[in-house]
């Protein structure tokens, strides 16, 4: 296990270095630059050149990359070229919205997907199973944007029980208001993601239900549900945790649609705005931190697999 951990940690470091190079170079392929955002449509070519020189954008790419990487190695992910805000500070602020948003969304998704996915598998030949599958299919087909609007219209505009949009200016210093402002986004995100996850849970449980070891357990006198709970769920959880890991990683940025519908100042909205403004030093810092988070989550999922599945531990 220790050798495995060391090998995976080394792979993590190499992956991060490759990610930093790719992020830096790919962003340079985008048309336009931050100088035009700063200078605007009426700036003269001479003014734009001065802005670029002030920001160091006229230096060779390798020098720009070197400066950035040097900062990153010292824990400095850079600063906005538009307003001087530190990338780390900005990310920390935005994660105060996005992390609970994604976390709560995943909890809603799990609460929906696990029980109903198992039920759909256990009753897959009945109308209950068929009904759950059909609703899940509908849930996958419904755009998150539309679902968010429906929820806001129903619970905020019509029933007036929850806020329609926004996050308190005072943030988590007003925990009650902050929580209330996240309920509808959680539902919008959780229902969409839960519908996807439910299909995987159902499929995974169905596979397990037809496995030999479950038949053996039932032959020894266990009920179908009892055998599934004792022996089957652990195996069924393996593919589901993989999908869950991918969903969490994707949602850190992918929650942007929900952030837009509910006007939440999160990571996705910030990235969208920064890319649009070509604030590339900020974007590359943000994307690197997010990439690192994705790689760490993937690392954690691998470890979780080993804890769940003894066969992987034995394989070394």
């Amino acid at each position, binding site marked *: 296990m220790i050798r495995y951990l060391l090998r995976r940690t080394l792979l993590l470091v190499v992956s991060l270095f490759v990610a930093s190079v790719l992020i830096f170079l790919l962003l340079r392929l*985008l*048309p*336009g630059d931050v100088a*035009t*955002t*700063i*200078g*605007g*449509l*009426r*700036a*003269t070519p001479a*003014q734009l050149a*001065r*802005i670029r020189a*002030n920001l160091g954008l006229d230096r060779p790419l390798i020098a720009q990359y070197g400066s950035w990487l040097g900062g990153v190695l010292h824990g400095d992910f850079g600063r906005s070229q*538009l*307003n*001087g*805000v530190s990338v780390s500070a*900005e990310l920390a*602020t*935005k994660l105060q919205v996005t992390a609970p948003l994604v976390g709560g969304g995943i909890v809603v998704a799990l609460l929906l997907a696990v029980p109903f996915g198992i039920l759909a598998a256990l009753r897959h030949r009945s109308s209950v199973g068929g009904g759950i599958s059909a609703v899940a299919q509908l849930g996958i087909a419904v*755009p998150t*944007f*539309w679902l968010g*609007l*429906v929820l*806001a*219209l*129903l619970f*905020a*505009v*019509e029933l*007036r029980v929850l*806020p*329609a*949009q*926004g*996050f308190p*200016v005072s943030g988590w210093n007003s925990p009650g208001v902050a929580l209330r402002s996240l309920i509808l986004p959680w539902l919008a995100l959780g229902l969409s993601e839960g519908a996807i996850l439910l299909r995987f849970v159902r499929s995974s449980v169905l596979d397990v239900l037809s496995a030999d070891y479950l038949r053996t357990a039932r032959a020894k006198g266990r009920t179908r549900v009892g055998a599934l709970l004792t022996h089957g769920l652990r195996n069924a959880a393996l593919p589901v945790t993989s999908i869950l890991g991918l969903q969490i990683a994707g949602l850190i940025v992918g929650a942007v649609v929900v952030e*837009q*519908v*509910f*006007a*939440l*100042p*999160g990571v996705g*909205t*910030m990235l969208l*705005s920064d890319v*649009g*403004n*070509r*604030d590339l030093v900020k974007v590359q810092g943000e994307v690197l931190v997010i990439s690192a988070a994705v790689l760490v989550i993937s690392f954690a999922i691998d470890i979780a697999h080993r804890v769940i599945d003894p066969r992987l531990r034995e394989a070394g």
Partner: protein
Amino acid sequence: MRRALTTLVPLLAAVTLVACGTGAPSGPATGASSLAATPPDAQLNLDATVNVRLTLEPTSLNPFSTAGAALDQLLLTNVYQNLLTVDVNKQDAVVPQLASSYDESPDGLTYTFHLVPNAHFHDGKALTSADVKWSLDQQTAPGSLGIYAANFASINSVAAPDPRTVVISLKHRDTWLLWNLTQREGIIYEQGTNFASLDSKDNGSGPFTIGAWNRGSSITINRFAGYWGAQPKVASVIFHYISDSNTANNAQQTGQTDVEATADPTLLQPFTNSSSFTVLSGSTSDKFTLAFNDAVAPFTNPAVRHAIRQAINNADVIKAYGGGIAIGSDVPPQDPWYEDLTSIDKYNPANARKLLASAGFPNGLSLTLTVPNIYTTAITDVLTSELKQAGITLTVNRVEFQTWLSQVFTNHQFQLSLVDHAEARDIGNYANAKYYFGYDNAQVQNWFAQAGTAASDTDRNALLKQVGKQIATDAASDWLFLAKTFTVVRQGVYGVPSIETTERFDASNLAVAK
């Protein structure tokens, strides 16, 4: 259950229409031109906070060296002030602000400004002529990073003979000077200001100070107790930056915002005929311009340009957008050189086909339109449909704004472009052959240059009127429409601006009833 369904089903149908964008209005939206008069102070809550929805968040709070209409909208008048300002209620007349009055020498080369007494910066220091001189010197200094510093190229020197008098001497007459003093480049900063520090702490002389910037969400401005003029009647204003129109509507309907500026004209239904809200309609300088690349074929042939203009029915485009007026040139009615030129190239698809045939395209032609993806597809759908009837197959290339800037604006790699030219008084773009329009008319350039140094505003206006007419006659572009702006106001809120609010949202008259 049945009751829940009866609520939910129509709601879902309504949301589907809204989300799919199929709820097209039967015609352009309308609104009131003004609110009821503000009641006396005794009936107002002078400690109120007003929540205002805006669309575009500033990228920085440094107005000296960062461009962007969102900075102007927030900062001009509210936080920073100029010698002069624009009165949008008087057809954009130039009126005093920090200068109570000014004199112009008979030769038009010297302007003397007399400052108001008791003006102070937000750090408490008195505003004097030395600050004015220093601010203008920062713009005119060689290599200045001031945005639009080039607009003060005519200034020879600025003097401060006494603490309340400023004298600007010009190299030559400049009929744009007073207007430019009302704009971003004319902001008066405290002597010695470090502009980079303005992002974290403002130091203007306006009625509000910046309270907090919750990036990606809102900016709060607070009443400045030391303001030299009339004190604002509200303690704070929170500007909420909500880009999605449906979300903004929800916020306004549920009372999270008191004022919804730049409301989507196609989504006003919840507010019209409601006793809880007033919908205000105001003019803008937003000219939705279909630009031809005049420097390349087939647009080098004027017949093609006229054909396109005649193939498009402006009324249909305005209906698709939701609100606006036809202008016929690059001049909105509030400009002193406005002339109704909508009779030039009126909608005539049959003649458009003839013009194309005469230009060598009897079987029509295919063109590509490059448009930033921030604009509604309803406009481009109308263009595609109407140009098709004239024999033009239009391919719409929707790109991100920075790509438009790079491809169209900087590198001139386009055939047709659609963008909102929101800058006021920007007719000079047609006198610049290097501008992305590619319009090169020596006569227009000459008239525009003469207008800049004309002996009087009357002479200038006459020359610019000729420019406006000539570019329309040449079909230099197609000015599809001048947008109207719609502002939804909750009952009990007064003093809400409604005209040209994307250029400056003057919060100084806001008031809330007790």
